[in-house]
């Protein structure tokens, strides 16, 4: 198997928050009826995590279950295990009306870490980043400036952001700009 290539080769920037491209992350998209017991059993068995509810993001390390839309779930698995996980899910859901595709190389993934996290993110998206509005463990799909993005908080100082691979360079520039040390806002964190 050839070596995976990250869109930006692990680019990183240190400012108000530490921005770092992480990965490679195995990603499997599953479309189907997320309330079907067979689907829930198959994905929770594979990931070893609870089925996420509306906009939920249940993650542990590099495995996770992200609620993307009413009929779409994104499974995070270790990169090397993605093809086997697809085979396992496909076998487990044989006969069900579902679509399972390995999309590991489709997206870029960034990790943001720092106390200014919510202020930094709030500069980019039309989203309320207050702790009550977006608690840790909730996925918010939105736009960051001009591109579609998804973001979820692992805890109060760590977030993960994903976007399409084709706009990874744009996203990294954006995140670096809003994390500029001279651009502190001090709204969510004084």
């Amino acid at each position, binding site marked *: 198997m050839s070596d995976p290539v990250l869109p930006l080769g692990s680019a990183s920037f240190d400012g108000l928050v530490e921005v770092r491209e992480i990965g490679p992350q195995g990603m499997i998209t599953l479309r189907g009826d997320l309330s079907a017991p067979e689907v829930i059993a198959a994905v929770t068995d594979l990931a070893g995590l609870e089925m996420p509810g509306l*906009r939920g993001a249940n993650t542990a390390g590099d495995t996770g279950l992200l609620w993307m*839309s*009413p009929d779409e779930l994104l499974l995070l698995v270790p990169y090397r295990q993605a093809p086997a996980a697809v085979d396992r899910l496909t076998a487990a859901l044989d006969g069900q009306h579902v679509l399972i595709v390995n999309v590991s190389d489709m997206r870029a993934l960034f990790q943001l870490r720092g106390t200014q996290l919510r202020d930094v993110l709030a500069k980019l998206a*039309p989203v*309320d980043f207050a702790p009550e509005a977006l608690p840790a463990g909730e996925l918010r*799909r*939105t*736009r960051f400036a001009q591109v579609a993005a998804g973001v979820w908080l692992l805890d109060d100082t760590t977030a993960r952001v994903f976007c399409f691979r084709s706009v990874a360079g744009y996203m990294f520039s954006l995140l670096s700009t809003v994390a500029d040390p001279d651009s502190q806002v001090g709204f969510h964190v004084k």
Partner: protein
Amino acid sequence: MLTFECPCCGAHADETELHAGGEAHIKRFGPGASDDDFEGYLFTRENPKGVHFERWRHVNGCGKWFHAARCTMTMEVFGTYPAQTFQPPKDLLDKITEKRPGWSWRDLS
């Protein structure tokens, strides 16, 4: 700023996160329809000052279509409801009547 609550994912989505889909509840008439019916389906649109029903798509979010009722004058949003319906829900119509007595829109009032 126009903010809708997406009925599919529950997110409070700003207008810039959505895509406008034009007027809601437009009916296409079946085979054998008259030219007038087809013209109405294609071109005749409401342009109200006040209560309006529209389709929107949460394009940068969950990707789903939904319906919304709002006031074109004040930008007040009365509510949103799922796309899989031919009529706005009764409780939404009651809510609009409470706020805008005597309103009408096409054959709704």
